[in-house]
């Protein structure tokens, strides 16, 4: 008996010390979302109270004991209009408020620092622009908007940080983005919330929020030697991209310098913003996104470059702001044995220069 009460006691203590109704607010969006959440809780409580009050008071006042004969009432248009319009109005307020938050969460600001996240069964891999890799954890600084560009290698996953109130599915075949600005240093939960197979519940990790100084130290201490863009550059060279995408006047492909963020005219008509998603598509399905004025000769790299490899390439092209770097890669190309362009050419298996595991074998 005393044994049981001890367990119960511990239980109670634990409950009272850990008790929380909502997770910590550790991002800039969190208080905004909580404001809406508590507004809705309030409305719900009022609504629920009204229903409970109505039901209980009517039950007491008009129980058969007190009120043996019912008075038949057809209805009341006025009352019904009231309880149609008031909830509708409240719901519309919630809709507008919610939509504002929704658009805020999924529209990253221009100055956000970008981190790539790849989900696969059953782990999260994060790639910092500086080349730092993380598995099942993510280090971010406070006071700096961080944009996550998510993609999945296999099934749907969902990147959820309750403390930041953000969540986004990582889906196969397409980049999705979400952003946040952390405010409070600490370690928070990272969950995969979309059911993704056997070890779904083990696809969890930590979000480590640090002060900007600590973050800098962490970046310096966990660097892998080459930045993401440098990895991309190596890959760019080993895939001989520069054979076409160079600055020569007779270049067969568009020049990629400073291409990121510009509007491109497509040969199919229309234009497109050269963002991450576009660059990825242009590498994997080039002919669907052909730039105006170029022949459809680019081979697809679908199945040849892993998602991490694509990320490195995208990051490289993003940071490409001088012709010099492209020329450097051209020089490497000349060392390669085969000419470029034939569609079924296997990717060169230069493991050393291609960054670890970025080219699929």
């Amino acid at each position, binding site marked *: 008996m005393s044994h049981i009460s001890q367990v119960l006691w511990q239980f109670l203590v634990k409950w009272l010390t850990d008790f929380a109704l909502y997770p910590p607010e550790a991002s800039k969006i969190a208080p905004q979302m909580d404001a809406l959440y508590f507004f809705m809780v309030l409305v719900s409580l009022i609504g629920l109270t009204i229903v409970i009050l109505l039901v209980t008071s009517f039950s007491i006042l008009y129980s058969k004991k007190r009120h043996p004969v019912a008075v038949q009432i057809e209805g009341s248009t006025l009352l019904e209009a009231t309880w149609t319009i008031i909830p509708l109005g409240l719901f519309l307020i919630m809709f507008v408020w919610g939509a504002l938050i929704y*658009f805020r969460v999924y*529209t990253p600001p221009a100055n956000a620092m970008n981190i790539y996240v790849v989900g696969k069964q059953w782990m999260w891999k994060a790639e910092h622009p500086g080349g730092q890799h993380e598995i099942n954890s993510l280090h971010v600084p406070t006071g700096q908007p961080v944009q996550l560009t998510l993609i999945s290698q296999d099934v749907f996953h969902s990147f959820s940080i309750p403390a930041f109130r953000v969540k986004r599915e990582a889906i196969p075949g397409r980049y999705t983005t979400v952003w946040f600005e952390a405010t409070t240093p600490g370690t928070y939960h990272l969950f995969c919330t979309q059911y993704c197979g056997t070890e779904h519940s083990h696809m969890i990790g930590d979000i480590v929020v640090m002060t900007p100084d600590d973050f800098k130290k962490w970046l310096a201490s966990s660097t892998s030697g080459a930045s993401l863009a440098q990895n991309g550059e190596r890959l760019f060279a080993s895939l001989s991209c520069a054979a076409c995408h160079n600055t020569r006047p007779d270049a067969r492909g568009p020049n990629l310098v400073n291409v990121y963020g510009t509007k491109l005219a*497509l040969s199919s*008509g*229309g*234009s*497109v*913003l050269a963002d991450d998603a576009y660059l990825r598509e242009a590498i994997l399905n080039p002919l669907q996104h052909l730039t105006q004025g170029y022949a459809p000769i680019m081979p697809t790299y679908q199945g040849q470059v892993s998602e991490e490899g694509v990320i490195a390439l995208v990051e490289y092209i993003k940071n490409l702001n001088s012709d010099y770097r492209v020329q450097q890669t051209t020089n490497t190309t000349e060392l390669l044995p085969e000419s470029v362009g034939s569609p079924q050419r296997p990717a060169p298996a230069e493991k050393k220069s291609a960054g670890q595991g970025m080219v699929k074998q």
Partner: protein
Amino acid sequence: MTEELGKTVDHESPEIHEREHHVVSPRIYIMILIALLVGTAITVWASYVDLGEWHVAPGLNIFWNPIVALAIACTKATLVVLFFMHVKYGTKLTKLTVGAGVFTFLVLVGMTLSDFFSRAWGRW
């Protein structure tokens, strides 16, 4: 349904029913058959002709070929529904049922496509 609302179930005798039941004459069937065959011929022919496109806006071109093909298909389908399937002579309820089917179909197609087509739109 609005017509059905408030109306009681008809308890007509079979004789009245017989009179209301419209029997379509074979001549109409033959005419519809010819129309359908002609429609098929036109679709095949039209698919070999370049009907051009309409530049609504840069990046938004409407090709006439698929529109013509679909228009012919819709016409043919309407003929079958109206005459072979007797909807033209059917009750309001039958017409409403057909309408409801087409409507829900359009909801499925339209609302799904609304997602696919607006994905590429710029962000706010």
